[in-house]
């Protein structure tokens, strides 16, 4: 037997080239495999960093807010000293602004000018005058909150090029449509930019036309296919044929339109020195001259025609270097503020009237339809009330359940069912708890909709499994010898548990509870189900008031079209994350602090 076994044994020469190559290949595989693991963790870390950075970058601007500091005259015409509350503070603010820009006459322009200041500015002014009625009739320097668009304009900054002119210029008037004639080709550079923009647009149109033609060709092929077998075609296929024919027609029309437009633009581009009309798709060109501002609508190398936005002091000639060509690089169509508004905002900034402050209102006011007035106080209080209800329900119930299951439960089917239940409940989708809340608490028990009471109830059921599982682990970590010692000196089972097992398990239970609460704080879906999504301006004062919660507020804001709400959403997320980090951090601290090795 030994002989036979020996014959099968073979020795391998590890020094041989083949063996060495094999070992090298194995180590390469090893390195590759290890790299996969590192890549996996790296990707996860990268994703986390990207998400957090994205949110911080988006959210930080929301923590500051711009306002205009202007001298406001509170005339008794607008504010009756006998009825301070009913005064027309909007008018006060409006008049202040109009006094600054007296040449704004058309209704549309006036509305645009009023739109620079937030509607909330008047309310704040009202509060101020209410607390000090002696201000009526006086002119006081007042901080006026800007609207979201104006605020965004200052935050994002805008690319403005200023080019001092080399030639001497003459202006044909001080208001209305004017022509500026320069002695040198001061507008040549701008004209070139505009022209090359035309070329780019022509290119785009041509590409688009080509694409449409491509689609049309595929459709033609399909059409030909169908037509070949038209005799046997079903009604559905005939229907398709009709659709295709119509599509082809509309496509060829689009192709023609695009081609024609492209050709027109090309002609304009080719005539490099000809006069060019500026529209909202190219960078805006303005001329700052004689203390005023002219928006250029047509220009050649040396001459510009346009509308006065800010009135000129005189129509006389301007010396070389005393006037400049101003370019707002972003085309008007891609901006949220038009040239006129930019000019007002720039003028205000030049006058030193614009200031930026920390946005305290974000923390002290409730929700609003106006982004610059919206705050998270209502949501924070709502979350606090909801969590309060959750805590007072699930802490005692969770701990009691854990004590029962860990210390008193007999081994029977009931206990088995409870255990299986708790584990499964922990994995039930949170939205299902929302359905429970809706059907049970709202429809069956008739509890108030949108209330922290119901939100807290639902979240309590949601985090109960977490707390029970954590508490059981904490109770299990207390060595049985301690309980046995207590029992040994004649304590009852309950005395032993409540006096000797529960106290050392408390830190563990608290850790689990904090983690459960953090989970509850971030939970959104079930709250949507029970109606905590309403637009609620007032800060709730009790657990039966209609309220919303911080994550729900985030969801609501993220859905709004105003750009400024994006920053608010990100800022609210930052606040939520800070709370979560603090809670989880304190849980970890607690665990480290009280971790006991038995």
């Amino acid at each position, binding site marked *: *037997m*030994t002989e*036979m*076994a*020996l*014959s*099968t*044994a*073979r*020795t*391998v020469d*590890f020094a041989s080239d083949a*063996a060495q190559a*094999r*070992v090298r290949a*194995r*180590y390469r595989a090893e390195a590759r495999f290890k790299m996969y693991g590192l890549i996996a963790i790296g990707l996860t870390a990268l994703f986390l960093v990207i998400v957090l950075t994205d949110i911080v970058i988006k959210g930080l601007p929301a923590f500051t807010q711009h306002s205009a500091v202007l001298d406001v005259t509170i005339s008794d015409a607008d504010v009756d000293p006998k009825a301070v509350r009913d005064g027309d503070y909007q008018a006060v603010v409006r008049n202040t602004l109009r006094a600054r820009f007296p040449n704004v006459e058309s209704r549309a322009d006036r509305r645009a000018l009023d739109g620079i200041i937030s509607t909330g500015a008047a309310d704040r002014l009202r509060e101020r005058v209410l607390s000090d009625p002696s201000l009526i009739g006086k002119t006081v320097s007042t901080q006026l909150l800007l609207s979201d668009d104006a605020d965004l304009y200052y935050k994002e900054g805008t690319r403005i090029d200023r080019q001092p002119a080399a030639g001497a210029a003459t202006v044909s008037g001080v208001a209305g449509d004017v022509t500026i004639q320069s002695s040198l080709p001061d507008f040549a550079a701008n004209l070139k930019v505009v022209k090359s923009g035309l070329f780019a647009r022509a290119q785009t149109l041509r590409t688009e036309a080509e694409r449409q033609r491509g689609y049309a060709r595929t459709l033609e092929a399909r059409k030909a296919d169908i037509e070949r077998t038209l005799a046997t075609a079903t009604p559905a296929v005939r229907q398709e044929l009709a659709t295709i024919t119509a599509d082809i027609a509309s496509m060829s029309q689009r192709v023609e339109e695009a081609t024609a437009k492209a050709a027109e633009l090309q002609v304009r581009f080719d005539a490099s020195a000809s006069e060019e009309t500026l529209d909202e798709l190219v960078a805006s060109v303005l001329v700052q001259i004689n203390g005023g501002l002219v928006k250029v609508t047509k220009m050649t190398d040396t001459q510009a025609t346009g509308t006065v936005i800010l009135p000129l002091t005189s129509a006389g000639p301007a010396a070389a270097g005393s006037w400049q060509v101003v370019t707002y690089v972003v085309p008007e169509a891609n901006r949220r503020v038009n040239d006129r508004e930019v000019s007002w905002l720039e003028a205000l900034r030049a006058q030193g009237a614009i200031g930026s402050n920390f946005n305290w209102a974000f923390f002290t006011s409730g929700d609003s339809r106006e982004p610059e007035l919206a705050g998270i106080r209502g949501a924070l209080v709502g979350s606090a009330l909801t969590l309060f209800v959750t805590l007072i329900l699930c802490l005692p119930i969770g701990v009691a359940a854990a004590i029962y299951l860990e210390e008193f439960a007999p081994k029977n089917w009931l206990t088995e069912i409870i255990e299986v239940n708790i584990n499964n409940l922990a994995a039930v989708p949170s939205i299902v708890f929302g359905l429970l809340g809706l059907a049970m608490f709202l429809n069956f028990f008739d509890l108030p909709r949108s209330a922290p009471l119901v939100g807290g109830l639902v979240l309590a059921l949601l985090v109960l499994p977490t707390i029970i599982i954590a508490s059981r682990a904490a109770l299990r970590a207390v060595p049985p010898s301690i309980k046995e010692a207590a029992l040994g000196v004649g304590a009852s089972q309950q005395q032993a548990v409540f006096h000797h097992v529960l106290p050392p398990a408390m830190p563990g239970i608290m850790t689990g509870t904090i983690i459960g609460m953090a989970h509850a704080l971030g939970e959104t879906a079930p709250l949507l189900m029970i109606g905590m999504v309403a637009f609620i301006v007032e800060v709730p004062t009790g657990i039966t008031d209609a309220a919303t919660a911080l994550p729900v507020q985030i969801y609501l804001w993220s859905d709004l079209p105003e750009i400024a709400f994006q920053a608010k959403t990100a800022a609210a997320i930052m606040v939520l994350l800070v709370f979560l980090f603090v809670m989880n951090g304190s849980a970890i601290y607690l665990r480290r602090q009280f971790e006991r090795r038995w």
Partner: protein
Amino acid sequence: MNSLVQVNQSEATDATPDVGTKPKVIARDVNVYYGEKHALKAVNLDVPARAVTALIGPSGCGKSTFLRCINRMNDTIPICRVTGKIEIDERDIYDPTLDVVQLRARVGMVFQKPNPFPKSIYENVAYGPKIHGFAKSKTDLDEIVIGSLRKAGLFEEVKDRLTESGTSLSGGQQQRLCIARAIAVNPEVILMDEPCSALDPIATAKIEELMDELQENFTIIIVTHSMQQAARVSERTAFFHLGYLVEEGRTEDMFTKPKDQRTQDYITGRFG
């Protein structure tokens, strides 16, 4: 079975190695630290080829630690540090240019608790040849697996169920499967770390028989806490105590006339 035992016993006495021949494994001034703990202190030991050497001593004396140095299993413990020199066939195994994967193919190991992989019996034995690329073909591999199972004395018991899980075997069979797994790569040295401590006496007897057979072709180093086992299977014995190698010599001499008082105390059961 009986005749086999007799044959083996006679072989064992015949195969008494000449102390003058070159030792297979040489340890010089080996120290092992687990973090702060100095687990093995300046151990010097020569292990003869093609014989069974037993390492004995009370728990925590460092005998397993020493065993795990010989195939560098201690490398898998991050806080473990080894100094000194261990040579196999006059080649330092702690030489940085030496490849630990190849070393372990030459130095097999059998553990205290049988640890078959949760795979079929066949796959368990084929594991080593496969990863090291020993077999050129399926028939090659079959040959190695069957040969190794034969050598481990397990083939007859499992030949009809090679595809069953290795964990379905009894404890003794599992341990012999682990031995088959170890010898499938045809190592020069086999380390056994208390291979019988989890087994019943009958299974233990089978393993001991097997060791007797295997020492014809392999150098075996066995750690055991049972002095009787050491006396039964080994040619030479080394006694470890508190990290020191106290005494080393022919097994007969060790048990009949120990030189050191501590050895005396241990084998007479004063401590352990």
